[in-house]
């Protein structure tokens, strides 16, 4: 009898485990978990994205060590580099029309790109999440007004806004921080509504869940409910938006530089600026000034986008591909939709004990009324 206990979800495996909570913290980290669970093309896409992103971060961190020259260096010793020199042993990727080393400029360019990502995300994510949480939880007219404002902000062209901010900050031609902040501030105007809408939508969903109601029944205050029960359950789509916004940040900075509102060449490397100066080179057959910064932009954006898109696909069970079922290596378990793992608990002989004796049903007949 003990081996045949009709408790649901007995000797049962997860049908779709959210994240196995007892695996090590390392395996539960957002991206690591996805890499482990993905297969096939989806896994390749995710891995390519991760590699590209890691290369970008590495280059940004170690630019002074990797770059042969400084970003504003025009000469080595007493010898000028010369303008538009083709690739050579001294200058692996040649020099620009202004006489800078292309490879060095491209490597140094990763730093402002990284800074603009950090600045834009920091500026927007906290405000967006907090406002979305409060607005979604309390609802009412404040919520409606905020949603209208957010929708209006979506219509703002971020590049145009970035130009205005760049002019306000430093009159157009600016220092590294001037250019980075111009892009970051204008981006935050567009990104805050994104975080706001996403978090608000999740909060509206989560606050209708029974566990939020049960917190209310217990007598928890709104701050505790939002902080402990709602917020953490509403952030699952944030990594996705974050990665997609990273690529948007890089593109905006490059656009500013290309239009001449970016960072001065003497203050930092700037891919957009280099691209704009190489426009005339392209028609005269000089490829080496345009391709490296262009590739840098493309690969950085591609890396972030691939990570974001893969995370999106993997988060959705309908889009996620799985390893095919193998007839050979079957474990003796049965699936339950939304089922539950119940392995043996120390000190408990059988699951029967967990469910408790059912003697009230069996004992003394006389108690039937």
């Amino acid at each position, binding site marked *: 009898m003990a081996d045949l206990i009709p408790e*649901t979800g007995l000797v049962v495996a997860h049908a779709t485990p959210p994240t196995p*909570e007892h695996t090590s913290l390392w395996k539960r980290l957002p991206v690591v978990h996805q890499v482990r669970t993905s297969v096939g093309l989806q896994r390749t896409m995710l891995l390519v994205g991760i590699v590209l992103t890691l290369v970008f971060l590495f280059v940004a961190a170690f630019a002074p060590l990797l770059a042969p020259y400084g970003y504003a260096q025009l000469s080595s010793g007493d010898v000028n580099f010369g303008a538009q020199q083709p690739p050579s042993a001294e200058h692996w990727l040649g020099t620009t029309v202004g006489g800078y080393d292309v490879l060095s400029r491209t490597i140094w360019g990763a730093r402002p790109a990284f800074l603009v990502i950090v600045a834009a995300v920091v500026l927007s994510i906290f405000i967006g999440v907090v406002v979305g949480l409060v607005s979604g939880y309390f609802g009412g007219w404040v919520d409606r007004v905020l949603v209208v404002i957010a929708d209006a902000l979506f219509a703002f062209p971020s590049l145009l806004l970035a130009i205005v901010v760049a002019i306000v900050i430093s009159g157009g031609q600016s220092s590294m921080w001037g250019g980075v902040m111009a892009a970051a501030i204008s981006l935050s105007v567009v990104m805050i509504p994104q975080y706001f809408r996403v978090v608000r939508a999740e909060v509206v969903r989560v606050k209708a869940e029974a566990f939020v109601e049960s917190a209310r029944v217990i007598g928890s205050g709104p701050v505790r409910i939002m902080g402990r029960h709602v917020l953490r359950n509403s952030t699952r789509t944030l990594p996705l938006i974050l990665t997609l916004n990273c690529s948007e940040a890089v593109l905006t900075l490059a656009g500013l530089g290309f239009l001449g509102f970016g960072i001065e060449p003497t203050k930092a490397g700037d891919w957009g600026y280099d691209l704009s100066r190489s426009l005339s080179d392209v028609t005269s057959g000089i490829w080496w000034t345009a391709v490296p910064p262009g590739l840098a932009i493309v690969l950085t954006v591609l890396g972030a986008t691939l990570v974001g898109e893969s995370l999106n696909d993997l988060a959705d069970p309908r889009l996620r591909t799985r390893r095919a079922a193998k007839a050979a290596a079957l*474990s003796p378990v049965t699936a339950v939709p939304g089922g539950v793992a119940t392995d043996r608990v120390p000190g408990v002989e059988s699951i029967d004990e967990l469910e408790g004796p059912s003697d009230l*049903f069996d004992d003394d007949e006389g108690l039937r009324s």
Partner: protein
Amino acid sequence: MTNVVDITDLRVSFATDSGTVRAVEGVTLQVASGEVLAIVGESGSGKTVTARTILGLLPETALTSGAVLLTRKDGSATHDIVTLRGNDLRDVRGRDAAMVFQEPSTALNPVFPVGWQIAEGLRAHRKLSDKDARAQAIDVLRLVGIPDPEHRVDHYPHQFSGGQKQRIVIAQALVLDPGLIIADEPTTALDVTVQAEILDLLRRLPQEFGSAIVLITHNMGVVADLADRVAVMYNGEIVEQADVHTLFSAPQHPYTRRLLDAVPRVGGRRLRDRVRVGDELEAMVVDDSATPVVEAKDLRIVYPGRLRQPDFTAVDGVDLVIRPGEVLGLVGESGSGKTTIGRAIAGLTPISDGSLKVHGVEMLRVKEKTFRPVRKRIGFVFQDPATSFNPLLTIAQCVAEPMVVHGLAPNPQEARPKVDELMEAVQLPKAFGDRFPHELSGGQRQRASLARALILGPELLIADEPTSALDVSVQARVLDLFARLQAELGFACLFISHDLAVVDLLAHRIAVLHRGVLVEEGTGDEVLGAPKHPYTQRLLASLPVPDPVEQAARRETWRNLRAHG
């Protein structure tokens, strides 16, 4: 008699994130034409997967082996569904076997008229004019008992009631005159009075259309009412197959016996009359003179209408009293206002008019600040144990939450001894406290939910359909535990349920709600033994009992009631 379906050694496994899992292991099953075969079992036993295989409806992650031979109604063709692909499979679906889904409100497309949706099946298999298709749709709607089909054929799904929608889904399955209809929990989403109507319709199908039915259900009452033969599934295997009378009168397999024992019956054994004093069991006495824990007088709860729609009165002038230590069962169908009353007592829904006193606090226009201290003395058990726990907190943290909120413990760790004590009381091992909610089964979660509701030692517990999301044997255990704890701790309880048998098991007094009005109230024997109000009588007659012989007699009573009422 020929077999419509012949399943031989069917095995199905699924690829999931945690590896391959087997859902069906070696099922062999035959369905004769015109026969009603019920597949019973608990969630996860593989009954739905088995039935869906007959139509080739499994997801891509499934790996199937074995043979499923489906024969056309006129015997002209036999196909092995497992090997069919693409167009061949589509040709079989609808014509040889059709499906009736559980939830009629989601099985119909809301943007098309029902007649068009019925005709869609016809168009998929035959070339015919719109006029003919429409005529056939009207015919089949009339057959399933939709009044005024010529007019109603152009209506959209939202213009029909839940029971009518299920009739339309059945019409959709019938229109191609298939030899087999697979009904996957066809009445689970419906109220008990509507369920009786749908069961009546389903019973006519084999006689009038010659279709066999594969009925998937967990409700033994439905099985007793409808089935000719029963297959009991457990863990992906069929443990017992027998005709319905043999199965109910002499179940062979221990699992079947256990399943049948666990089904609550009206007028069956009761748990409520027991109090444990030491090891002795004594009859529970409710002191009628004590100050009531909950006292409602002419209680009204109105949901304001939106966009010029009229207001909806959910609760309309209800008087009720719950005394200390008493279990009041509140019964009603969906929309009767039973959950609204429970929520109002817990302070989740504001009341509109009348008076509701909870622990002496008047709830009409109550301020949260006034009510906060009272919350400590109220416990609440929610219907769905899967969603009533924050998935990111451990069970111990969830159970400790009330103590932390009311300042009785600075953090969940400090509350742990008390949590362990409660876990023991609900018969969960202490180690489960460190697990996350999704790592527990439904019954275990509902125990934890009970622990959370009881940790502050409330004088009043509101249980809103606490067992309706659970399988029947798990339900029996949870109810058992519930009765035990109630007897030991002596809290008053409002037990809300749509299931008369469950309420009869636990409640000292039963109140029947119908459309926001309290139609009948009294002890279990009064209300269920000799119901006075016609609605209660109808409710009671609609409830299928897990006994084919008795159910046949009850069906007659029900038919008479329906004919006269």
